[in-house]
């Protein structure tokens, strides 16, 4: 396989399929006319954002995009909740938020089964639901919820695999650190990575271990340290998202293995900084586009209010990031220019 | 075994043996505590068990109560050899005990404690606390004491919990009742009620073991006496055939003459007082005024709840003072905390050694040094060498019976624990010593030494305020006695004005004092 070509393909191709196997619609297809915009504005609608977890760059960017677009639509955001990865807390959050009778809930379900009843209750109450990434089981697009906007997590896993292969020259020994929980997003990435890397016959996974959190950086550090101890000839480590990757960075530093190649997903600030360094360990990552996703979700919510027919599944394609594309990627992910400290390192 | 044989011919026929202990041996981590002790108890008798601190009295009785198992020997209850594997087994055999150490549940009420594990039941088999309160109230009123059975034990004063322990044992309908120093925290009134109750129990054929260090009590209620020393029974006989001096000699191991008699000392009361308290106000106190002169021992006499402890606490900065003035050596002092009081030259031996006096889980050494950590440090660093040396000195001086300074304080006998509370303050060189029941549970030999010690301290110009419910002791050392009642000073007697203990009783009952010296 030629990683170069494969990565190029990613720019147009979306791997993930919708919850009922729907083909993905591009985000660019979701637009509102001026008349529709005015109509939505006149509704004085309200929205609640019910997150699975709020403490990372991805959530922040997503919320930024949502808030910015909701502001344009004249929709007031009345609550942002954070379930801290706990489904039961999320169920409570939904129930609580419903007391304020929002017109819209934008949410990412922590657990598709456990939260389904709560979302169904919201749908019954007439709330327009727009999901991120994942849909509660049993809910139907068009009737129960408006649409789901997903990053191409599978595609990101593919991207990270090709990027890693590219950096390794298609051969070497690697370690894999995955999320030891049946969590939709992280599982997709992991499956994609494994499937893709298997196409490189000279890349061998010599160590593989899951981490459970909540201290993902610390857990990853311990695992990475152990991997480096057991396999002194390890060339690269793949980490399932940026926070564990930071732990890998720390482990590599203490082991004196600054030549270790790290590939991961999500463009967090710390990994971006490492990537910006000349010879930094983080050589490639697959990024999502949370800001754009947020904007798209807000627009889809407006579809819901208007009763306009929405595509059931919208996906934003994966964004492979390397040192050379860092600045532009940052803009795409966060809708902001690259922070000064990273810029200064990049030079 | 040096048990004396006494002439039984003049005695009424002895009742059946309720309990017999034969050849009991017990050691704790290799240290022999009991050696071949024989002890017998008849139905309907009060058997006084005596001996120095650490002689093994409590340990022997705990074997009878099933708390400890003997290493050797036999326990015979009601004619049957029994194995008392736990307190509940002993209870099933009709044995109940008033423990010397705190054995109530502090978070439960007095009534709940009294009926613990034997709660009165309601209709549905649920426990009926109201009934328990009713019965507890009846028991208390039987005992002639006023304790609210709905108060939690943690809120009770030392004397009150002692009475609660007694009430608990009384409510059990035991055939054998062990009382381990039941009067250590009681004053005269409660003691006489207790004796009344004991007579009643005796008449009902209940066998009673009565442990005490107060000589007068033995001869008042005891039918028989057994004296222990160093883990052996060294004397046993009918009370009426024994002389007090003999008993003391067997306890202490030497003859002691006049140890508890007053030695007249000259106190100059003309000069400025060392401690001058004017109109002191605090919760439980109303306008207390008193003086202590240098070299003077002032006794505080009062009944339970009269406010003596409150006064001590107010002076020492434990209890918030709401008015009045304390002057020490013409300098006004304000003691907002014990820390300040100590800085100003006060020392307090508190009433309750378990709660206020000791960190029971710490070693003897650690407890002895606690009030003077500052003295044994240089630049913040503890100098354990001199500290240990000092602790050994104190252990020797007060004859504290312990395997060494590193023994856990909890494992010492009650009287020896009390000595530590006293010893803590000796190194501090205080100006004013406040002693609240300093000899509670201390054996007669040590008591004499402590009294001697108090005199020595006073001779060195210190002022001593002595609270004691034992009038014999109070009169042995006080140069002046203040009477307290209801939180105020109600009278003052020079030592010369008091001829005998009855005068003090009388005075406290509100009567005038007969001036024998006139």
């Amino acid at each position: 396989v030629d990683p170069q070509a494969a990565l190029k393909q990613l720019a147009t191709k979306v791997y993930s399929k919708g919850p009922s196997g729907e083909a993905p619609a591009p985000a660019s297809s979701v637009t509102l006319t001026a008349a529709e915009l005015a109509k939505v504005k006149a509704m004085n609608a309200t929205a609640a954002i019910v997150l699975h977890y709020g403490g990372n760059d991805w959530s922040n960017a997503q919320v930024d995009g949502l808030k910015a677009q909701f502001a344009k639509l004249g929709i007031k955001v009345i609550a942002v909740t954070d379930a801290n990865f706990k489904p039961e807390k999320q169920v409570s959050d939904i129930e609580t938020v419903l007391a304020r009778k929002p017109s819209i809930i934008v949410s990412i379900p922590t657990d598709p089964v456990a939260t389904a009843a709560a979302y169904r209750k919201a749908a019954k109450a007439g709330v327009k639901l727009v999901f991120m990434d994942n849909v509660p089981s049993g809910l139907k697009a068009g009737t129960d919820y408006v649409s789901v906007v997903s990053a191409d997590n599978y595609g990101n896993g593919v991207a990270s695999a090709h990027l890693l292969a590219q950096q390794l020259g298609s051969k070497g020994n690697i370690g894999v650190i995955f999320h030891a929980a049946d969590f939709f997003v992280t599982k997709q990435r992991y499956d994609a990575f494994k499937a893709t890397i298997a196409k490189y016959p000279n890349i061998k996974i010599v160590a593989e271990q899951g981490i459970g959190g909540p201290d993902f950086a610390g857990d990853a550090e311990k695992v990475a340290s152990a991997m480096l101890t057991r396999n002194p000839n390890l060339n690269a480590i793949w980490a399932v998202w940026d926070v564990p990757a930071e732990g890998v960075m720390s482990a590599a530093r203490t082991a004196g293995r600054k030549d270790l190649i790290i590939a991961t997903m999500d463009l967090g600030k710390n990994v971006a900084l490492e990537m910006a360094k000349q010879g930094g360990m983080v050589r490639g990552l697959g990024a999502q586009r949370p800001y754009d996703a947020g904007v798209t979700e807000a627009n889809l919510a407006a579809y819901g209010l208007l009763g306009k027919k929405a595509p059931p599944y919208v996906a934003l394609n994966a964004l492979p990031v390397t040192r050379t594309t860092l600045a532009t990627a940052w803009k795409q992910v966060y809708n902001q220019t690259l922070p000064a400290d990273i810029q200064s390192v990049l030079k | 075994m040096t048990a004396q044989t006494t002439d039984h011919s003049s005695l009424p026929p002895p009742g059946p043996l309720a309990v017999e202990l034969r050849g009991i041996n017990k050691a704790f981590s290799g240290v022999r505590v009991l050696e071949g002790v024989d002890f017998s108890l008849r139905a309907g008798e009060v058997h006084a068990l005596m001996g120095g601190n650490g002689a093994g009295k409590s340990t022997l009785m705990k074997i009878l109560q099933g708390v400890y198992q003997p290493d050797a020997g036999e326990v015979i209850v009601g004619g049957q050899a029994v194995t008392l594997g736990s307190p509940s087994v002993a209870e099933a055999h009709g044995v109940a005990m008033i423990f010397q150490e705190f054995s109530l549940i502090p978070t439960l009420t007095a009534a709940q404690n009294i009926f613990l594990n034997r709660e009165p039941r309601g209709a549905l088999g649920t426990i009926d606390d109201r009934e328990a309160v009713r019965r507890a109230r009846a028991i208390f009123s039987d005992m002639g004491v006023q304790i609210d059975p709905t108060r939690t034990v943690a809120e009770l004063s030392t004397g009150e919990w002692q009475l609660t322990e007694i009430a608990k044992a009384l409510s059990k309908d035991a055939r054998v009742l062990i009382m381990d120093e039941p009067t250590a925290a009681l004053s005269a009134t409660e003691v006489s009620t207790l004796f009344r109750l004991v007579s009643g129990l005796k008449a009902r054929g209940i066998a009673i073991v009565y442990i005490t260090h107060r000589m007068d009590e033995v001869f008042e209620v005891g039918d028989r006496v057994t004296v222990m020393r160093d883990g052996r029974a060294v004397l046993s006989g009918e009370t009426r055939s024994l002389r007090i001096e003999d008993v003391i000699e067997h306890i202490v191991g030497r003859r002691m003459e006049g140890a508890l008699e007053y030695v007249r000392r000259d106190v100059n009361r003309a000069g400025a007082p060392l401690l001058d308290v004017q109109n002191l106000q605090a919760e439980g106190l109303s306008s207390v005024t008193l003086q202590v002169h240098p070299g003077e021992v002032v006794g505080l006499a009062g009944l339970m709840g009269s406010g003596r402890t409150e006064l001590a606490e107010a002076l020492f900065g434990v209890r918030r003072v709401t008015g009045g003035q304390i002057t020490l050596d013409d300098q006004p002092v304000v003691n907002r905390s014990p820390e300040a009081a100590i800085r100003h030259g006060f020392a307090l031996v508190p009433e309750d050694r378990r709660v206020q006096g000791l960190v029971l889980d710490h070693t003897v050494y650690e407890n002895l040094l606690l009030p003077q950590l500052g003295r044994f440090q240089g630049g913040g660093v503890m100098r354990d060498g001199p500290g240990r040396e000092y602790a050994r000195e104190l252990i020797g001086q007060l004859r504290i019976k312990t395997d060494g300074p590193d023994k856990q304080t909890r494992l010492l006998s009650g009287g020896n624990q009390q000595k530590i509370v006293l010893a803590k303050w000796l190194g501090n060189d205080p100006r004013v010593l406040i002693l609240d029941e300093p000899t509670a549970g201390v054996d007669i030999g040590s008591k004499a030494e402590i009294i001697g010690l108090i005199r020595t301290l006073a001779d060195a110009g210190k002022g001593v305020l002595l609270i004691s419910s034992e009038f014999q002791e109070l009169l042995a050392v006080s140069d002046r006695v203040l009477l307290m009642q209801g939180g105020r000073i109600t009278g003052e007697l020079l030592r010369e004005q008091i001829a005998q203990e009855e005068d003090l009783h009388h005075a406290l009952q509100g009567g005038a004092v007969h001036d024998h010296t006139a």
Partner: protein
Amino acid sequence: MTTLPNAAAPRRSILANWRSYVVYVGFALVFLFFSIFLRDAGFLSSNNLLNIVRQTATISVMAVAMTFVIASGEIDLSIGSVAGLSSVVAALAIPHVGPVGGAVAGLLAGAAIGVINGSLVTGLGIPSFLVTLGMLGIANGVAQWITATAPVPILNDAFNNFFGSGDLGPVPSLFLWTLIALGVGHFLLRRTSFGRSVLAVGGNATAARYSGINVARTKLMVLVASGTVAGLAGMLYAGRLNSGRFQWGQGDELSVIAAVILGGTPLFGGAGTVFGAVLGALMIGLINNGLILMGLEYSQQLIIRGVIIILAVALARRK
């Protein structure tokens, strides 16, 4: 776990008072605050108030059992994990043995862990903190292992409604479970000799033994009860979330202990109030609910929740 003499007379009585009303006053203050500030945000709607009860039901139920554990002078850190494991056991069992069998299996799993905890604590004398901390990991690991960390859906509506999702007329079943736990717990602690023994053992184990109470058996029973009730909490989670998963209940131990302490049970044993514990749980739920309704950011919610907890206790103390 030995406690030590310390009956500082004046502090004692403050503590006694403190215990008796802080949670009531605190609860009232917090409730009043939100009632005024969130008048228009639906805070006082009966549905929202029932939500609070629903959301705190698992914590409330476990807090009732934890009151006994803490009152007896021990601690149980494993409850959250046990709830998760029990939910998984029930979910796996239901397709084979039906809803009743599944519930029994889940409860038995909890009880079995309680027996292990209790035996290790009383038999070997290992501090309950360590035993139950170890068990926290074991139960959690087993739950993850037997499900490969995947959720196990429960399709049986009877089970789901009975335990967590249903209503009895206008009353959510979770409300009833809370009431049952409260009633049974309160009765046991106040009106039975078992409850009395628990308090005695926690207040002074030696004295309790001298009074003929079997200290070891009492502690064992308390820990078994705690495990079983954690199993029940697992059923409630499973019913509410229509599935069993290792995550249910994770981290609850701290919330549960907090509810108990907030309710006025001292951390060192010898006293306890089941009523206070449930009110403590409700108060935490109340605060969470109110802060979300206020539309605060999560970070601000965290800060203000912390401040309110401290403030409520401090203010109540002042009165």
